[in-house]
């Protein structure tokens, strides 16, 4: 591993940390435009995070150390996940350290801690949010794994950068199985990131909130870390989607010139993905909580169909 690989790795993590809030801001802006509201600045999430870091934290009297620890763990896992997902280049040292299945495990760790922390204080809303989060998580996880398996079958590896590199360098082919899994992945992305058909990120209406209920007891720097981690999670999911389904333009070989192409390409894909999420959120209505399993079962179905179609059509 040469130093340039490590430089690329550090660059990618820094890029993820810096642009994740911007992506959330962009999605919010697009949503506001589509709904004929005057849009907040795309930089708003940065301002919120900075404001929260300057406040004094209030913590419930009966909070255990776990409650204080959770934001750091959640943020840490999201940063580690960002290190595994290729954004602008594929030659990364982390490729050999962890693959996409470990990535799913990291997301599960974060979910575990955030749910435990929500139940820690013992408020009704925290417990309710934790239960719903776990319900959605355990349904979304198999679908996500299945999506990754299909991509792995096509490129014979489970490491995300290798999958992306494989898809880029191979002669362009039509993969109907990947179309199916792309639909499944989009549904998982919406569910996992508390987006509209499953959860509404802009609501504090107690009967419907999931993600917000988990964060109710947090304030100041803890809340800032949680918000940032949520933004990173969305960023990670979007980049996984880009790496699996539209990797073209990513720098598969070394050199500054390849990066010169891949960074604008990546930025364009990110902008499009953000606008797409905003569009889906605008045209769909929020499902009742009890319809969420149906939604995620459909995602799983799409992923399995992708697998079957792949096995049949190439067999």
């Amino acid at each position, binding site marked *: 591993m040469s130093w340039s690989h490590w430089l690329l790795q550090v660059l990618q993590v820094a890029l993820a940390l810096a642009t994740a809030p911007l992506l959330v801001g962009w999605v919010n802006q697009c949503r506001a435009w589509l709904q004929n509201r005057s849009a907040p600045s795309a930089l708003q999430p940065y301002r919120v995070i900075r404001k929260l870091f300057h406040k004094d934290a209030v913590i419930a009297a009966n909070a255990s150390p776990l409650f204080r620890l959770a934001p750091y763990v959640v943020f840490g896992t999201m940063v580690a996940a960002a290190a595994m997902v290729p954004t602008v280049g594929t030659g990364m040292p982390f490729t050999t350290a962890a693959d996409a299945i470990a990535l799913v495990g990291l997301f599960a760790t974060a979910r575990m801690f955030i749910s435990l922390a929500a139940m820690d204080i013992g408020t009704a809303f925290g417990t309710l949010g934790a239960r719903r989060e776990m319900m959605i998580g355990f349904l979304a996880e198999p679908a996500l794994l299945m999506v990754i398996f299909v991509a792995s079958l*096509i490129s014979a590896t489970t490491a995300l950068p290798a999958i992306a590199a494989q898809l880029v360098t191979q*002669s362009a*082919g*039509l993969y*109907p*199985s990947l*179309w*199916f899994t792309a639909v499944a992945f989009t549904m998982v992305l919406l569910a996992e990131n508390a987006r509209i058909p499953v959860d509404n990120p802009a609501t504090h209406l107690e009967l419907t909130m999931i993600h917000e209920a988990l964060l109710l007891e947090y304030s100041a720097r803890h809340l800032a870390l949680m918000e940032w981690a949520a933004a990173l999670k969305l960023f990670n999911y979007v980049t996984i989607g880009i790496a699996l389904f539209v990797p073209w333009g990513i720098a598969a070989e070394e050199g500054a010139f390849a990066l010169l192409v891949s960074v604008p390409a990546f930025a364009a894909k990110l902008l499009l993905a953000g606008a797409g999420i905003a569009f889906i959120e605008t045209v769909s209505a929020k499902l009742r909580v009890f319809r969420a*399993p*149906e939604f995620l*079962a*459909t995602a799983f*179905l799409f992923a*399995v*169909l992708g697998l*079957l*179609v792949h*096995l*049949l*059509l*190439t*067999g």
Partner: protein
Amino acid sequence: MEHLTLDLQLLNAFAALLLLLSFAMLSQRRIVSLVNLLALQGALLCAATLLLAWRTGEQHLYFSALLTLALKVVFLPWLLHRLIRRLGVYWDTEPLLNVPFTMLVGVLVVVFAFGLAQPIAELASTATRNAIGIAIAVILLAFLTMITRRKAMSQVVGFLSMENGLFFGAMSATYGMPMIVELGIALDVLVAMLVLGVFFFQIREQFDSLDLHHLETLKEDQ
């Protein structure tokens, strides 16, 4: 992955989309949307036939593509829409099984169909033999659609979708049936549809509903 030419890849993609549409029909509860999906399935079938005709150079496939377009994309959906309007049936009642469970059964059916198609595909010599499994899956899913529905209308749509699957299967196994057989089947479907159209009115006259479970209790000594 073995290397396929672009037109074959496109055909495979059409096959995959046909399967997707079958699942969409399985989950759809609005009859109007069901008919639209059927028309879309017909259009896909027509496109696949055209592509195959261009690829193989078989003249009769052009005719069957034309037939598909006229019958399955234009005429039958139009007829069904007209029937829906005149009968006023827009929604199917709650299906016998709930939707997620039906979908899961559907996945099992697809696995079964793929297993079933394996020996057939080995015997077939066409380049499209991989799609035979999908054709069988489409047929069986249409069966499932018919089984899980109560309204006569949606059962007929399932029946027509099954015919689409059969047609696609014949196409991918042997590059289409002989012209005379294809014409016969097309005419059959047309006549069946017209007769069933009359039937709908009779059923409604008799039972004040299109729910087919009334037919199960029909006895002479009622």
